[in-house]
Structures are given as structure tokens and as C-alpha cells.
């Protein structure tokens, strides 16, 4: 089936190419008009929407953070008060974790993974659209509740019994638990989509050991999502049941246990950190390779580190619970696991430094963000080793030290690489170049602002400032450092505004990027910027890890029918061509199904009739979704 034929490019083949392009454009045409907006399933379109939505939530979460910083800027402040403050930190945490960090990393994956593995789109385009809409509905629901001053107020971790029926009457916690369910549903769907895309739609020749590290990172992350998210979905379901129909999963009076909630939540919650952080590591790898102008040092150790992180990530949830006084022996185990997870992260940092060390550096903005990432993340990693130690953790747990630590890890470890990634892939996403000077100014401001904001929090925590307090007495002496942190937060804001300005300016009048402005190595840079809806005119085939540096254009796939939405399915390990699969086109059903999901889950808060309602709606959606398309395939011989 595979043949090597030498051919000459002739006028004939050129007109052939033109016809091919016309047919592909026609087959993969984006939906038009108002209705088309709701039917679209093209992965670049959906991923772009997801990115924009995630950044809108990032901005909202940021505003909440600023309000909290204003409240804490001086002692005995009454700017916001306890009730609103509790809503703010709950919604801030939930937004950043569920509505920004996970979706934004998945959106980057949905956009880039198909391009990077040489596929036309994702394996399940409709599921992708469904995932986006569920996420959107969940996010909007959370903010409707916040803006009506009935936002959840028991923290992003919502410990029972505080969040249980007795101590949190009303609907606030119900909103939270349903929002979590929405976002997890979305994350799980997207993860499954990314896994199948990665394993089954890779270009011929892209064996697993030739996959770009970013794709590896998204693959490993997606597997973590598959095994971690069920825990929190189960936990929030049980919480909702405790609150709505009177079950007793967490009620210590009749055999339940509040600690059970913590186990379930952190069994998800700790892997969650790595779910956010691993894709960012993938972005760093892409950036480091491109701007060092050479392959990464230690591809295999890098991949093994990602996998090791994923496994270890499931073995250290208890370090969030040291203060509950669990048995000493168990604590030793979890300390060891928590300390040892620093090793795979360390290996990756060493590999990047070795790569930079022996590269020919191009100091573009994305690389600056990587430098910032290394500096900040190492601090966060080291304070992470501190909180892994039981005695130290008992002092700093639930204090501002941990606030500092987690922001060093999550902003340093995920947002800085993400900003680097945005600067790096912006040309691909939009076809325009960002301004380098503004980019670097943005970096300097965000880096300075970040450290001004969060470094003092280490000290505040050690000095005795607990988390989640809406105010403190002047006599505590927490005032000056808090004021410094608040000032820093505004510097950080200025930095992010510079980044935003840069993006807007580039969209309006940016320099044309062309397909490959950075002379990068991976496949996404071989197609137009932004890519056509069908992405690849000829599907590529590859023979190495760095196809664009190795002459990708020497090998193409032929024989796909451009008049159908065909994708080439290859073998999971060695990516040998296996069969040709036809994808469904645009559809309104993903949106309708997401709306049905939304109606069901939201109604559930108010009445148990939501269950039969959901059952009916769900059946209708399933039938609609899977309604047979007009057959394009060979029918079975014997038909009625």
C-alpha cells in the first residue's frame, strides 16, 4: 500500500493541486451566517472560542483577585466585608482552576495537537463542540450567581460540613457543585478527544517516539484528567445529594465522614495541579527547541519525566491533609512521594538548560517568558519541597505561605509558559506577528509585578497570617507587606494590560507572519497561518522528531478523497496508515445537547423532577446526535 515514486512537478500536477484545494475548501467549508455560528465543529474555530472564553474568565478571576488585594491592603479594612470576600475568593479559585487553567491548556491542545501530529482535525469534532458549550454554560452560570450576590462562599475546595446542608443553607454551594460538574464533563470530553486524536490520527511515520514534546504533554495530561476528574465529579455529586435529597455521605452523625470529602477532593485536586502544569511544560519544550535552534537534549528522559510526574501526581494527595492528624507512617510515605515528584520536574529543567547551553539562542519574547518561568517555578518547586515535609507543612499549611507557593507554581509554572506560548503561537493562530518590544516590556512588568505580589506572602505566612481572612488587626503587623503585595498586584495588572495591548494592536495592524516566522521544527508551521479549515492540503508523513528541520515537504500522503471529510487513521504506536475514516460535518446537536445538560443540572438544584426531565432530553439528544447521515459508505449486502 505504501510506495515510493519519484515524480516531477509538472504543469499538470499544479492544476491538479489547484483542483484539490478547491475541493478541500468546499468539503471543509466553515458554516456561514447566524445559524452557522452554533453549528460549527471545526476544531480551530472551537479552540479559538475556548481560548477567548478562558481568557475572559482569567480577566474576571484577576479582577476578583485585585478586589481581595484592595481589601487586604491595610488592616481593619471594611471595603468589601466578610460575605463578599468569601464569595470573591471562592469564585476566584474556582474560576482560575476550573474555568481558566484547565480549559486554556486544553484549548491550546485542541488547537495545536491536530496540527502538530499532521491531522486535519480532532477525532471527535462534535464532542469537541459539546465540551466547549458545557464549559461555557457552567462558567456563565457561576458568574450569574456571583453578579446576583449569591455566589458560592465556601472556598474552591468547599470542605464539608461547612458546605453541607446544615451550615450552608441556600443555593450557593449547589451552584458551585454544579459548575464543577459542568467543567469536569467538559474537561473529560476534551481529554478523551485529545487522547484519541493523538493515538489514532498521527501522520504516517510519526511513531510515538517522534511525537513533539508538547503533544506528549497533552497526551499525558489527558490521561491524568481521565483518572483524576471522576473523583471530583463523584465528590460534588455526593455533596449535591447530601444537600438536595438528604443523603449522609459526609455527615459524621450517622456514619459519614467529613474527611472522606477531603480524600476525594484532593485525589483530584493534587493531580489537577499537574494537569495544569504539564501542558505548560510542553509549551516550554516547544519554545526552547525552536529558539535554541536545536533538538532538545534528552528527549527520552523528558518523556519519561512527564509520565513519572503523572504517576507520582496521584500518590501525594494526602499532603493537603497533614494537619488533619492522619497516622504518622502514612504521612512519611506521602512526604517521600511529595518530595520525589521534584525529580522529574528537575530533570526537565536540567534538560532545557542543557539545550539552551548548547544552542544558538534567539532571544525572542517567548524565550524571555521561559526564563521567567524557570526562575519563578524553581522557587515554587522548592517551597513545594518545604510543604511536603510534615513538620514544616504543619506550620505553613493554610497560611499565606501556601498562597505564595501555589501562585509561584501555577502562575510561574503555567501562566508564564502560557504567555510564552501565546507569543510563540500567536502568528499561527492569527497570521499576524506580535510586537517584540511590547512583548518584552510586558514580560518585564508581569515578572516584576508577580514577584512583588507574591514574594511577600511567603513572609506573611511565616509570620502567622492565615489564608482566607477578610481582614486582620493592625497590631499583627501584617500591614506593610500586604500593602506591598497590593501594589505588586497592580504592577502585574499593568504587565498583563501591555500584553493585551500588544495582542489588540497585532490583530488590527500586525505584520504578516507567513507560515513559519520562527523557522520552527514541528508540523504546524508547515501550513498557512492561520490554517485553512482542512489544515493540510496533502497530509504529511514524517521520518523524524523535527520534521521541518529534516525536510518534511519531501513526503506526502496521496489518495485521500477530497470530497469527503476524510481523516487518515494510523496505528497507535508506529503510526502506520490503517484506514480512512469519514468525519461528520457541522451540527446543531452538540449545542442542543449542552443546553440539555445545562437545563438538567441547573434544574436539579431546585427539583428532583430534573432527573426524568434530563432522561427525556438526554434521549432526544442522543438520537439526534447519532441520527444516521446519508450513507456514503458501502452498504451491507443484504438489506431489507
Amino acid at each position, binding site marked *: 500500500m505504501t510506495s515510493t515514486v519519484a515524480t516531477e512537478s509538472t504543469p499538470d500536477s499544479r492544476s491538479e493541486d489547484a483542483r484539490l484545494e478547491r475541493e478541500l475548501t468546499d468539503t471543509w467549508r466553515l458554516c456561514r451566517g447566524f445559524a452557522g455560528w452554533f453549528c460549527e465543529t471545526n476544531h480551530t474555530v472551537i479552540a479559538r472560542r475556548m481560548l477567548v472564553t478562558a481568557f475572559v474568565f482569567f480577566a474576571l478571576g484577576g479582577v476578583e483577585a485585585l478586589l481581595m488585594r484592595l481589601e487586604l491592603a491595610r488592616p481593619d479594612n471594611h471595603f468589601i466585608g466578610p460575605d463578599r470576600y468569601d464569595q470573591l475568593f471562592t469564585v476566584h479559585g474556582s474560576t482560575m482552576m476550573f474555568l481558566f487553567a484547565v480549559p486554556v491548556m486544553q484549548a491550546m491542545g485542541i488547537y495545536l495537537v491536530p496540527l502538530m501530529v499532521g491531522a486535519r482535525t480532532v477525532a471527535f469534532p462534535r464532542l469537541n463542540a459539546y465540551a466547549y458549550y458545557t464549559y461555557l454554560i457552567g462558567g456563565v452560570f457561576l458568574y450569574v450567581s456571583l453578579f446576583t450576590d449569591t455566589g458560592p462562599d465556601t472556598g474552591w475546595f468547599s470542605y464539608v460540613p461547612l458546605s453541607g446542608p446544615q451550615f450552608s443553607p441556600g443555593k450557593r454551594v449547589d451552584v458551585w457543585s454544579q459548575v464543577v460538574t459542568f467543567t469536569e464533563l467538559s474537561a473529560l470530553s476534551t481529554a478523551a478527544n485529545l487522547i484519541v486524536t493523538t493515538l489514532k490520527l498521527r501522520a504516517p511515520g510519526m511513531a510515538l517516539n517522534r511525537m513533539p514534546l508538547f503533544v506528549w504533554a497533552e497526551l499525558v495530561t489527558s490521561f491524568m484528567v481521565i483518572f483524576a476528574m471522576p473523583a471530583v465529579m463523584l465528590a460534588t455529586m455526593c455533596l449535591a445529594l447530601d444537600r438536595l435529597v438528604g443523603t449522609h455521605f459526609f455527615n459524621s452523625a450517622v456514619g459519614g465522614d467529613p474527611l472522606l470529602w477531603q480524600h476525594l477532593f484532593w485525589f483530584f485536586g493534587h493531580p489537577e495541579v499537574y494537569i495544569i502544569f504539564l501542558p505548560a511544560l510542553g509549551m516550554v519544550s516547544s519554545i526552547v527547541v525552536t529558539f535554541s535552534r536545536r533538538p532538545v537534549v534528552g528527549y527520552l528522559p523528558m518523556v519519561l519525566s512527564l509520565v513519572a510526574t503523572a504517576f507520582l501526581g496521584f500518590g501525594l494527595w494526602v499532603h493537603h491533609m497533614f494537619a488533619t492528624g492522619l497516622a504518622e507512617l502514612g504521612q512519611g510515605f506521602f512526604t517521600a512521594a511529595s518530595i520525589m515528584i521534584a525529580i522529574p520536574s528537575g530533570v526537565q529543567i536540567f534538560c532545557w538548560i542543557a539545550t539552551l547551553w548548547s544552542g544558538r539562542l534567539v532571544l525572542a519574547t517567548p524565550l524571555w517568558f521561559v526564563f521567567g518561568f524557570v526562575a519563578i517555578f524553581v522557587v515554587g518547586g522548592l517551597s513545594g519541597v518545604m510543604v511536603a515535609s510534615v513538620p514544616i507543612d504543619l506550620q505553613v499549611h493554610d497560611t499565606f505561605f501556601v498562597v505564595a507557593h501555589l501562585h509561584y507554581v501555577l502562575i510561574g509554572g503555567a501562566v508564564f509558559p502560557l504567555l510564552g506560548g501565546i507569543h510563540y503561537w500567536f502568528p499561527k493562530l492569527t497570521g499576524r506577528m506580535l510586537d517584540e518590544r511590547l512583548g518584552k516590556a510586558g514580560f518585564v512588568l508581569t515578572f516584576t509585578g508577580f514577584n512583588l505580589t507574591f514574594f511577600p506572602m511567603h513572609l506573611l505566612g511565616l509570620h502567622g497570617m492565615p489564608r482566607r481572612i477578610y481582614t486582620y488587626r493592625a497590631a499583627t503587623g501584617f500591614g506593610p507587606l500586604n500593602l506591598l503585595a497590593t501594589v505588586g498586584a497592580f504592577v502585574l495588572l499593568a504587565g498583563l494590560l501591555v500584553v493585551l495591548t500588544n495582542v489588540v494592536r497585532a490583530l488590527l495592524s500586525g505584520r504578516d507572519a507567513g507560515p513559519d516566522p520562527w523557522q520552527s521544527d514541528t508540523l504546524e508551521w508547515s501550513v498557512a497561518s492561520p490554517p485553512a479549515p482542512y489544515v493540510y492540503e496533502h497530509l504529511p508523513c514524517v521520518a523524524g522528531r523535527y520534521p521541518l528541520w529534516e525536510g518534511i515537504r519531501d513526503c506526502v500522503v496521496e489518495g485521500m478523497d477530497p470530497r469527503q471529510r476524510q481523516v487518515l*487513521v494510523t496505528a497507535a504506536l508506529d503510526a502506520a496508515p490503517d484506514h480512512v475514516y469519514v468525519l461528520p460535518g457541522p451540527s446543531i446537536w452538540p449545542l442542543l445537547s449542552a443546553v440539555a445538560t445545562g437545563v438538567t443540572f441547573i434544574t436539579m438544584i431546585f427539583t428532583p423532577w430534573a432527573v426524568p426531565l434530563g432522561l427525556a432530553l438526554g434521549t432526544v439528544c442522543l438520537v439526534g446526535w447519532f441520527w444516521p447521515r446519508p450513507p456514503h459508505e458501502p452498504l451491507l449486502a443484504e438489506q431489507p
Partner: protein
Amino acid sequence: MSERRRVTVRELPSYAFGPRDPMWWGVALLMCIEGTTIALLLLMYFYTRQRVDVWPTTAPARDSLYAGAATTAVLLASIVPTHLMNGAAYRGDLARIRRFMVLMTALSLAALGTRIWEFRALPFRWDTDAYGSVVWGLLTLQTTHLGLGVIENLMFVVLLYRGPVEKKHLVDVEVNGMYWYFVVGGWLPIAATIYGEALFR
């Protein structure tokens, strides 16, 4: 111009069974997700168990055991037509696929019936205590899997009789069969936990 290596895919088939098929992977991942949920809920059962002195707080009655045994028997029986149906799908034998799909759907509906019996036979409610909650939770989770399976089976029955049946639907039939194995397989540890404990106390 340079030479171009070409990989020709014109001759490739348009569908494939098992792990070669993307949908198979999709359903396999769904099974991972739901399997994890079952495992966690079972862990919740045992976690709650070690915190309570008397367990089960209200032992499932004799009726419950009969009902649970009935569901288990029906589900185990349904494996046979599922297996035969998959075999027919590999061979593309539409008549046999139809026959076994109908049989399997009938059995899945029967399991739904015995499940209702199970719920009614339980001598405690979900809001009795933590034990009640977790048992009802396990049963409800499995009923959700079962219900989804029933809806899918019914859809396939309609498709198979109404047509047009494409060759690629053979793969979907196989994948549906795999999901059904999961429904049955997921039930066994739940049944062993809920009823086994009462049986061998």
C-alpha cells in the same frame, strides 16, 4: 524539482474493528472514567465501613438478595448474545446481528426491571444513614450505566431494522457490545460488595 516520496492510502479500508477504530478508543476511555468512578465509590463504601461499628447498619433483606441475584443472572446471561453478536459483526452477518441484538436488548430491559425490584426490596432509604447513602449511590450509578446501555441498544435495534445499514455500523455494533461488557463487568464487584457482605455475614 525534488523527489517526493508518496504514501498511497487509496486502497485502505474505510473501517476497522477493535483498537484500530477511533470510536473503540473513545468508548474505552469512557469505560476508564466510569470504571474509576465505580472504584472510588466502592472505596467510599469500605472507607465508611471501617468507621462504623455495626455494618451493614441495616442488613439487606432476603428479598434484596433474590433481586440482586436476578439482576446478576440476567446480566451474565446477556453476555452470550453480546458475544455472538460481535462474532456476527466481524463476519458482516446482518441477520444474526439483528437476532442477537434484539435478544440482548430484551435482556437489558429485563435487567432494568429486576433493578427496579432491587431498589424496592432494599429495607433502608438513601437518607437513613451513610450506609444507605453509599449503597443507593452504587446502585444508582450502575443503573445509569445500565440505562445508557438500554437506550443505545434500542437505538441500534431501530437502526438495524430501519436501515440503511452501512459497513461501518458493524464497528459500532462491536463497540456497543464492548460497552455492554463493561456494564456487566462493572456490576459484578458492586453486587459482590453490596450483597456478598450480607450473604456471608
